[in-house]
């Protein structure tokens, strides 16, 4: 079941990208929309 609801603040998270750069979801706040894609695996 969905754990995030529409029109509520998106849960922030911090991960490193595959080149080692730290990315926070909140980095984009006030800057850009984000399309988060949860991938299940590469072919």
């Amino acid at each position, binding site marked *: *079941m*969905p*754990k*995030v*609801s*529409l*029109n*509520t*603040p*998106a*849960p*922030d*998270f911090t*991960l*490193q*990208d*595959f*080149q*080692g750069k730290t*990315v926070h*979801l*909140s980095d*984009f*706040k*006030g*800057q*850009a*929309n*984000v*399309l*988060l*894609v*949860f*991938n*299940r*695996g*590469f072919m």
Partner: protein
Amino acid sequence: MAQLRQDYAEFEKRNTRIVVVGPEDENSFATYWQNNSLPFIGLPDPKASVLKLYGQEVNLFKLGRMPAQVIVDRDGRVRFVHYGHSMADIPENSEVLELLDQITQPVGGA
């Protein structure tokens, strides 16, 4: 992923960053990004911390993790959530782009 790659410019026009989160490690991401010339941000999440936070469904008996897409607007709010029920169950770009049109303020405005 190829579907998003194809319309990348359309997402850019709508001031939208594409952020891909997945269970693979950074080497798998790097290889896949290189082989497919992907312009997206790629975030390996082998511990599935974000996947769990956002409630990506896991079907242990069939296909593993199901795809999911979430649109977060500039104000950090969730505007769209799609939880797939199968590998192929991802929204059409046109559907996502239309929604982005609704939430994106035109830049400049001339």
